[in-house]
């Protein structure tokens, strides 16, 4: 890791609050920090209510005005949270681009897909209509859409889910951004199409040298794509580090729970699933102290205090848990088998 140049993206203590009905500030995301170096892929894993999408939107200032964002989001040294709207507009789509989850609702239904790719080029690169249209067709070819020239005149509903997502990717990469934010880009797609789209993303990002922040609830996807990983739960980052390290030696009980909940495709007979009892809390119903303690089989007295994010096994592998590393191995082995207990 280079120590001289600042990392491409440096998020420091990001906190997102929304004003509740009675005027109090409800924290949606608390104290999230991570860095992304050039060309790196960071995976953010979380379930509903974890705040992962909000975090992504906050990076680009895409949250509604009644939501307050604090902390620092430094992109190439500039704090995005202090920029004005016109300055942010210059960055959006040009240096930082987004691929959203559901391409059917994320594409304008009454605009041809070629135009949707071209309008970014016209806005940021000053291309005229003809030049932008030509370049858009090239981009559609690049993302693997057959008959790109005639397809560019299609509308989103005339394309399949996989094709629509390719269109979104073509648009996002049209101005060669340095950072790509992808929010569950393959969740709405079939598994074979998913594999193709992920491969495409990887290839294009490599070619451009772009860094990627990839949000997914699918640990398999994250493990294949990301070199760094942050696990989020109820607005907190609960574990963070190199994905190989986190998967090999997970430190947080929530991560154990996630890993235990996934049916594996190897090993016979299939191992029973270890479900985490209860459900992720809504923003309004978050417990005090460690947000996971209500569902955690290993909670003890200290857990009424919110733990700090500390690297106990290694400096760059951090977790937010009071358990001592020594106790963790035993605790993980003893994780109880859950048989579908409700909240």
């Amino acid at each position: 890791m280079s120590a001289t140049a600042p990392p491409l993206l440096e998020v420091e203590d990001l906190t997102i609050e929304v004003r509740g009905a009675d005027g109090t500030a409800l924290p949606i995301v608390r104290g999230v920090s991570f860095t992304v170096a050039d060309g790196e892929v960071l995976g953010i894993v979380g379930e509903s209510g974890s705040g992962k999408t909000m975090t992504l939107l906050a990076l680009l200032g895409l949250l509604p005005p009644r939501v307050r964002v604090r902390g620092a989001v430094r992109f190439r040294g500039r704090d995005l949270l202090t920029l004005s709207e016109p300055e942010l507009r210059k960055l959006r789509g040009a240096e930082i681009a987004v691929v959203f989850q559901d391409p059917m609702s994320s594409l304008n239904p009454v605009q041809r897909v070629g135009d949707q790719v071209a309008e970014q080029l016209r806005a940021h690169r000053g291309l005229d209509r003809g030049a932008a249209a030509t370049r858009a067709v090239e981009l559609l070819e690049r993302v693997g859409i057959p008959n790109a020239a005639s397809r560019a005149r299609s509308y989103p509903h005339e394309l399949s889910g996989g094709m629509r997502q390719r269109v979104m990717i073509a648009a996002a990469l049209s101005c060669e951004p340095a950072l790509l934010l992808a929010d569950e880009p393959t969740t709405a797609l079939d598994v074979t199409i998913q594999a193709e789209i992920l491969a495409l993303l990887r290839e294009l990002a490599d070619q451009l040298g772009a860094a990627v922040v990839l949000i997914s609830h699918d640990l398999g996807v994250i493990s294949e794509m990301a070199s760094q990983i942050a696990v989020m739960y109820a607005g907190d980052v609960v574990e963070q580090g190199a994905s190989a390290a986190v998967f090999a030696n997970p430190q947080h009980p929530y991560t154990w729970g996630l890993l235990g909940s996934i049916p594996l495709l190897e090993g016979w007979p299939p191992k029973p699933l270890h479900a985490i009892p209860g459900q992720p809390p809504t923003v309004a119903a978050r417990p005090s102290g460690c947000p996971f303690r209500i569902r955690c089989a290993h909670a003890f007295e200290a857990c009424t205090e919110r733990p700090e994010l500390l690297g106990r096994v290694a400096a760059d592998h951090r977790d937010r848990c009071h358990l001592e590393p020594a106790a963790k191995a035993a605790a993980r082995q003893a994780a109880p088998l859950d048989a579908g207990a409700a909240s």
Partner: protein
Amino acid sequence: MSAPVGEPLLALTDVVKEFRVGGGPFGGSSGQRLRAVDGVSLEVRAGETLGLVGESGCGKSTLGRCILRLLAPTSGTIRFDGDDISTLSGRRLRPLRGSLQMIFQNPYGSLNPRKPVEALIGAPLRYHGWPRADVEQRLLELLDDVGLARALRTSYPHELSGGQRQRVGIARALALRPKLVVLDEPVSALDVSIQAQIVNLLQEIQRAHGLTYVFISHDLGVVRQLSERVAVMCGGRIVETGPVREVFESPRDAYTRQLLDAIPRLRA
């Protein structure tokens, strides 16, 4: 009348389901015909789980609806519990509804938002003429079976989490003590940690009540977890069937192999 011992609980032979698409403002034969299910033959034995996998558009949901006779097959036979149910309609289908139930994918969309939990679960019972006292008792049994707190009986769907709603859907499906349950993507819309809860619950219920499942899903991992046998569907046809272990470890069909290869693996 029950199926004689040794005969499968459910047997499909060359089932075809066609839809008319398009056509002029007056409908009619100017439209094209779409074969969502194109000659499917399947067997499911009592007490087992058959997994039905495939990608979107392969016809698995349509097939599920045909099995439940929510749709009438265009041709082919469906035998359930010894009877040919392929062409039954109206009143003669009614008694069948108790034995064949469905659990849907979208726990929010399949629950009437204006009814509380107890009304939702009790509806099938009242519709089939159960007396009130029996309905009450069965309701409490079901709530316990699916792990819902009894206090939730007066809650409305929007007050429940996704997992809780799905439990309501399961309770409702179990109310009439069905023999066969068709589950159409029952956990796909749920968070990962809740999925595991529901999968475990479904397994436990199956063991406790001797149910037979047809488990439709695109998620191969979950299918492998629950099923004894699996059928792979593509383009309205079954391309491969067999015991789960065999199909997953040594798939014979190219499409099956393609599906299995595409799954992102956890490198742990």
